[in-house]
C-alpha cells in the first residue's frame, strides 16, 4: 500500500490553510483525522497532489454549547471526544447514541465529525445524525464565512458543497425549541464495519406534541437520505402507534437501497422500517419520556 507522491503542508493558522488550498486548486485536500483519506490514498483511489494537514491549527478541537443551547463542534473535535462528552449525554440524545457506533475505537481516537461530514460517504453515520437534527456546516474561505445547511452540504456520494478553497471549520446543531429526544440505530456486520443500515431520529416536543422531527438514513442510497415525509408524519401531535407506523412506512419508502454483500434491498428497507419503529417506541426510551 504505497500512495502516489504528494506534497505535505502543516499550516499553523486557518488563513495559511486557506491560502494553501487556494493555491493548490482542485488537487489539494484537507486532512483532519485522516481516517478515510489516508486509506484511500494508500489504495490509490485518491491521489491528491497537496495535503493540507490542519492538526497544527489551534482552537479547532472544541465542542461546546452556546448559552441558548446551540451546539458547535470544531473541525478537530475527535469522535472519541464526543463519545465521552457529558454535554452530549445531557442534551444531545441522537448524537450521544451515534458517537459510540462510529467505526471502531482506533478510528474514533483520530477521526472527526466535521471530516466525516466533508467525506460525504453514503455510509457515514454523522451526516445522517446532523441532517436529522437540522444542523449546518460553517465554511471559511478567502471570501469569509458562510453556513451551509447539512441537508444541502452533502451533494452526492463523496461530494460536498465546499468550494476548493473553503475549509469546513465547524458543525452547528441548532438549539431545541422544545424537549429534545431521539436516537441512532445502526446495523453493522462487525464493529468498525460500515452501516448496512443506519437510522437517525431527532425529535423536539412541547406539551406532549411533536414540534420538530428529523429522520435521516445511512447506507441505503447514493448519499445520506433526509426522510422528510417520514418526519412530517410525526409532526403536530403526540407519538402514537399509528403515527410511528406511518413514519416507518414513509422512511422505508424514502430509502433507495441496493442489494449487495451486506444484504438485499428488501432486507435493508425492512431494517429502516424496523429501526424507525424501535427508535420511536423503545421501552423507556428518551422519546417516550420526553413526549
Amino acid at each position, binding site marked *: *500500500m*504505497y*500512495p*502516489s*507522491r504528494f506534497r505535505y503542508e502543516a499550516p499553523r493558522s486557518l488563513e495559511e490553510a486557506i491560502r494553501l488550498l487556494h493555491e493548490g486548486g482542485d488537487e489539494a485536500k484537507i486532512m483532519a483525522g485522516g481516517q478515510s483519506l489516508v486509506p484511500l490514498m494508500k*489504495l*490509490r483511489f485518491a491521489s491528491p497532489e497537496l495535503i493540507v494537514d490542519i492538526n497544527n491549527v489551534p482552537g479547532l478541537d472544541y465542542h461546546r454549547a452556546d448559552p441558548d443551547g446551540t451546539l458547535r463542534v470544531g473541525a478537530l473535535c475527535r469522535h472519541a471526544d464526543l463519545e465521552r462528552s457529558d454535554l452530549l449525554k445531557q442534551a444531545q440524545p441522537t448524537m450521544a447514541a451515534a458517537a459510540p457506533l462510529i467505526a*471502531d475505537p482506533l478510528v474514533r481516537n483520530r477521526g472527526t465529525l466535521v471530516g466525516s461530514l466533508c467525506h460525504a460517504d453514503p455510509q457515514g453515520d454523522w451526516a445522517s445524525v446532523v441532517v436529522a437534527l437540522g444542523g449546518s456546516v460553517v465554511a471559511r474561505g478567502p471570501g469569509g464565512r458562510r453556513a451551509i445547511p447539512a441537508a444541502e452540504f452533502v451533494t452526492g456520494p463523496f461530494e460536498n458543497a465546499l468550494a476548493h478553497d473553503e475549509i469546513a471549520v465547524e458543525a452547528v446543531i441548532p438549539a431545541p425549541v422544545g424537549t429534545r429526544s431521539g436516537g441512532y440505530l445502526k*446495523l453493522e*456486520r*462487525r*464493529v*468498525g*464495519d*460500515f452501516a*448496512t443500515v443506519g437510522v437517525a431520529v431527532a425529535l423536539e416536543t412541547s406539551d406532549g406534541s411533536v414540534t420538530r422531527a428529523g429522520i435521516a438514513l445511512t447506507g441505503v442510497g447514493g448519499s445520506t437520505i433526509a426522510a422528510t415525509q417520514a418526519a412530517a408524519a410525526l409532526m403536530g401531535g403526540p407519538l402514537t402507534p399509528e403515527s410511528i407506523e406511518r413514519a416507518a412506512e414513509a422512511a422505508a419508502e424514502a430509502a433507495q437501497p*441496493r*442489494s*449487495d*454483500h*451486506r*444484504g*438485499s*434491498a428488501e*432486507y*435493508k428497507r*425492512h*431494517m429502516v422500517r*424496523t429501526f424507525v419503529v424501535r427508535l420511536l417506541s423503545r421501552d423507556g426510551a428518551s422519546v417516550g419520556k420526553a413526549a
Partner: protein
Amino acid sequence: MTALDEIKIGGLGASRKRVEDSRFIRGRGNYTDDIVLPGMLHMEILRSPLAHARIVSIDTSKAWQIPGVHLVLTGEMMATRNLAWMPTLSYDTQAVLATDKVRFQGQEVACVIADDPYIAKDACEAIEVEYEPLPVIVNPEQALAEAAPIIRDDKTGTTSNVIFNWEVGDAAGTESAFARADKISRLRLHYPRSHPSPIECCGSIADFNRATSKLTVYMTTQAPHIIRAAVALVAELPEHMIRIVSPDIGGGFGNKVPVYPGYVCSILASILLERPVKWIEDKTGNLISTGFARDIYLDGELALREDGKILAVRMHVDSDHGAFFSDAQPSKFKIGLLHSTFACYDVPVGHITARGTYTNKAPGGVAYRCSFRVTEAMFFQERMIHQAAIDLGMDAAEFRRINLVPDDAFPYRTPFGFLTDSGQYGKCLDVGLKAIGYEDFRKQQAQAKANGRLLGLGISTMTEPLGAGNSREYDILGIKMFDSAELKIHMTGKALLRTGSKSQGQGHETTWAQIVAHELGIPAEDVVVEEGDTDTAPFGMGTYASRSTPVAGAAVAMVSRKIRAKARKLAAHLLEVSEEDLEWELGRFYVRGAADRGVTITECALAAYTNMPDGMEPGLENTAYYDPPNLTWPFAVYIVTVEVDPATGVWDVLNMVAVDDCGVRINPMIVEGQIMGGLTEAYAMANMQFITFDAEGNCVGANYMDYLLPTAWETPGYELHSEVVTPSPHHPIGAKGIGECAAVGGPAAFVNAVMDAITDTGVRNIDMPLLPDRVWEAITKRRDVSGAPPVRTD
C-alpha cells in the same frame, strides 16, 4: 535426594509462559519485512484487473523510463527462462506471470524492481496492458455448462473445465443400504470461499551472491525445506546452493504453504540484478491472489433406520479450485482428506464422489487451519447429523449418542478406510451437555418460544485426522511426510534443539523445550529452540495440518530418548556400575537400591565432553526422524446457544462450551489459546466471513473493509473443558494435534444453533455466513438460503 518437580522445570503439563512472546509483544520480532540487506531493491507486482481476458499486448516502455527502476519483468521474459509457468503442489501448473491470458482478477501480470516500493508502484501503474475480455466463470455450475469457455486452454487437449473426478468407498454397498433405509435425510450445502488471512502477508527477500553462487531467500513459508526442493526444481539451481530462511512468521493458517509467483519473481530478479530483492505483498494482494480455502458444494444423504441408527452415508461434492489446481495436499488424494468425514460415527458403509473444476478465481484450496479439507468434511457431517435428527424427530444429542463410535471399538476402521486410534466420545458429550445445562436450556427454549423469542442450541461432535503422515500413505510431491529433531546438549547441560517444523505463532520455542524437559529433566528455560533455516535445521515437512506436535513433537521426544540412552552409558561410567543397574528418574540416573548414588543429566553432559569412557564417541548430540505409525485423532464436542431476533435476523451467542480431548497436553495454556483462536475463526466463518465474486469475477472481500475478521467486541466468550484425556496410543508422549480442532468443528455448532432456533419454519439450511439478512430471509420467506453468498444485484 528428591526428584525434580516436572512442573517447576517447565515440563509436561506446565502452563509456561511463551518464551517467544517477550520479543513479539515488545515489537522485537524479526519478520521478513524487518530484514534489510545492503543494496536491497524492492519489487511490486502488477495484477490483472479482469478475471478472464486475453492479453493483446504489454507495453513496459514508460515504466522503464522512471528513474530508480532497475527491472521490469513480464511473462514473456519469464518464458525465455522457462519460468513463465511453475508446477503446483497438486501436479498442475500455475502461471508465474501471465503470458497468454489472465485467468483470475488479481493474477500476476508483471513486476517492477526499483530503488524503493513507491517507485516500483508508480512504475507498475505506468505499464500499459491491453486486454481482450473473455466470458467469466465464477462457480462450478458455470464451469460445467455446455459451451463454457475453456479456462485452461494452455494445456493441450483440454476440452472441459473439470480437473478431476474422484471417488472413495463402496458404491454398491451404499446403494443397498439406502434401499433398506426407513428414512433418507438429504441436505445441500455450500461451504463458502474463505481466506486464511494471516495478519502478516506473504513476502520474500531473495539474495543471490554471484561470488559464492549461493542463493539465500528469507521468506514467509510454513515449510522451508519443501520450498528449497521446489526452488531447486523450478529455478534449476543446485539444492546445496539454496538456503531458505523463515524468520518470525505473523500467522500462516495454511496460506504460507504454497509457492507463489512473487517468490519466484524476486528470486529471478535477484539472480539477474545480483542484488537483494525484497517483495512484500500488500493486504489486497494477499486476499485476492494467494491460497484461499473451502468453496465446495455438497449433496449429502444419510440412510437411517427408524430407531436412529445410521445405515450409510453418501456424498457428492463439487469443488471450485480457481484457475490453477494448486491445493496443498498429500499427493494420493484429490480432495484432501474429505473422506475422513463421519469418522467419529459408527457408519457401516459410505460412498463419496468428488468433482473438481476450474473457475476464473484465485487458485488455492489450502488447508486453512485444518488437515486437508477436513474442515469441510466435519462441517458437512455435523450439518447432516443435525438435519437427520430433525428428520427422524429425534433429540440431536440422543441421535449422536446412538451413533458415536463406542470406547471399546478402537482402533476403529471408518467407512472410508481411516483407522481412528482412541477416544471416549460419549464421555466428552456428557461433559458438554452438563456444562451447557442441556435439559434446562430445552425448557427455557420452550418458554421463550411461547413469548415469541427464538432460542437455539447447536452441537458439533467430531474427530479429525491430524499429524500426517505415515509415510506409506502421505507424501507431498513424493516427499514422505515424516519430521525431524536435532538435539545438542552442551557440556554445561544447556541445550540447542532444532526441528523440521516451523512455528508461525504456535509457540514451538516454548512447547518443544517442555518435551525435552519432560524426557531429560533439563529445565525448559535451558533449551533454546531454532527452526526455519534450511542450512541448520534437520529436514522436515514444516508446520500445517496440526502435524507439529504429532510428528515433529514426537521426533523431539525420540531424539531426547536417544540422548538419554547415551547419557545412561555415561552415568554407568561415572558411577562405575553397569547400565542395567541404573534407574532413571526425571533428570537423574541412580543405582538401583541406592537412590543416593546418582548423577544428574547435567553431570552426564559434562562427562560427554570431559570424561567419557574409553571407546565412546565424545559429545552428546543426536538427530531423530519420526515417521508416525498413524494419524492422531483428537475428539471434540462444541455446543453453542443463541438467541435469534426474528425481526432483524441478528443472532447473538448466549453460551459456548468446548470439550476437547486432545490426549496429553504439553502446555495447557497454549492449548487453550489454540482452542480459543480456533473457536473465534469458527465464529467468524459462521457469522460474517466470506470471499465472493460478482458475475464479472470481481472479488468482493479484497480488503479488511469487506473481508471481516472478528474483533474482541463481537467475539463471544468460551467455556473450555479439559477433563477428558485419552492419550494417543502411538504418540511417544500421548499427545494429539489440537491447533485446528476448534476451527474445524466450531462452525457447525454455530450454524446448528441458529437452525435449531428456527426449526419451526421448516427451513433446512442457510449457507454460511449467517448474515442477518440471510437469517431474516429464511424466517420470513420460509425457504432455504443457499449457494455462494451471492452478490445479489437488483
